[in-house]
């Protein structure tokens, strides 16, 4: 059906004119949990995330995070997203961790031998135990969801109350990224979240 014909029929059905602006849409009532303390958010997140099969490791330093990743690697190869946060934590310099791929073919080849993908996240939602991931050239989906084990490394300050809080903070940011994934639990994958 040509679009013009469909829109003509639609406008006639609604009794509207071409280019007629709507009234302001009703404002959604957001449930902001800003009264939760950091510890309450963490407990809430732990309950929801681990309840859905995710593994949560809370560590106090980047050094502990590196050591934990070494244990998870158990001598096997890993590939990591080229993110400043992971570099800051020294994760990109770990033995057996490859990153900084300059083209898709190099990444594909590395992915054939690697067992672990190391990434970071945009934020975490305590209420639902959700990890919010965003696609970018530095963090392709092949690292996040292409390997048997996914390790997500994030600072504790990324822990928000819920989706309402995220949408209140910056709703337009969703439009800036090609893909945003709200990962609720492990979805049958082996996912380790290291919170520093």
């Amino acid at each position, binding site marked *: 059906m040509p679009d013009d014909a469909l829109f003509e029929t639609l406008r006639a059905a609604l009794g509207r004119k071409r280019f*007629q602006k709507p*009234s302001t849409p009703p404002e959604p009532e957001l449930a902001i949990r800003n009264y939760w303390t950091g510890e309450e958010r963490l407990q809430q997140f732990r309950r929801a995330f681990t309840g859905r099969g995710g593994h949560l490791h809370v560590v106090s330093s980047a050094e502990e995070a590196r050591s934990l990743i070494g244990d998870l690697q158990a001598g096997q190869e890993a590939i990591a997203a080229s993110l400043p946060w992971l570099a800051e934590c020294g994760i990109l310099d770990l033995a057996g961790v490859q990153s900084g791929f300059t083209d898709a073919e190099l990444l594909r080849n590395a992915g054939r031998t690697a067992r672990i993908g190391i990434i970071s996240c945009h934020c975490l939602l305590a209420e639902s135990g959700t990890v919010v991931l965003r696609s970018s050239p530095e963090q392709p989906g092949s690292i996040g*969801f292409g390997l048997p084990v996914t390790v997500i490394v994030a600072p504790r300050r990324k822990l928000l109350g819920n989706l309402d809080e995220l949408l209140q903070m910056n709703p337009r940011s*969703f439009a800036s990224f090609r*893909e945003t994934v709200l990962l609720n639990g492990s979805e049958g994958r082996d996912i380790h979240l290291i919170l520093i």
Partner: protein
Amino acid sequence: MSTPATVRHHVLTNLDHYLTELEEQLTAKGGKVVYLRSVEEVADSIELLAREKGWPLPADLRQQMERLEPGVAEYLLGGPREAGGSLLLAAGELRIASAAYLIAEAGAVCLIGPPADGAGPRMQIVVAGIDRVLPRMRDVAVFLPLLAGEGSVQFLTGPRRAGEWDGPEELYVYLVDGGRIPLLADPAKRDVLRCVRCGACLSSPPDGSPVVCPVGIDLENIPGLLRRELPPETSGWKYRLWGFVMRRPRLYEFAGRMLRSFWREEWGVPEPPAKSFRQTWREEGRK
């Protein structure tokens, strides 16, 4: 402050505006929006795209499409939306998914279900009824809890961008009328399109009190109003043949045996059991 009901009412009364905004936003980021009259047209269009690429498609694509994004009649008869409604075809090159919501302001498509593995498909087709639009991203906070349950959620705003190595090279959004416009024309029936297929109306409260629809559909009166207008389906040659066979037990049994012998998956109807009820009854009776 709004409720899901007031947002849905606002969207439906201004649907042309929000569809235009959605299309502008999606196409600005490289997505392609296609308006189609029916699920049949969706299947035709997918077959055409797949033929151009040389991708094989399953014989029962049309039945699968109907399950992914039903028309209005199926809304009235069907159950809640299935989470993760998507098809992966042509050895993973093509993914067809049903949108939970479309967000006009962000030009985003909201899918429920696990994200694609690895680099994902080369072509992503998203199918949605024209009524699935929400005005802004903030509205998702109110509407997502109605559908998502514990499943993961994806928001897509376009195909692969410059510098990205994965994600679909092409993103098509098929917006299907499927009989919705005539409903919109009638204010008494328009509200049925507020339905987001959350399935709340299918569960009865234990105390027998009336079910409250989260989007404010008048569950007492609207279904009756619509069903009264459905054409009676008790005439025509199919029903006369059915009646003829039903009145002849041996012929009925023979027809059942034929159906079980010749049933094919591509018919899109459930596989009949290995034995008829009569056979089982006779065998059980002998024991």
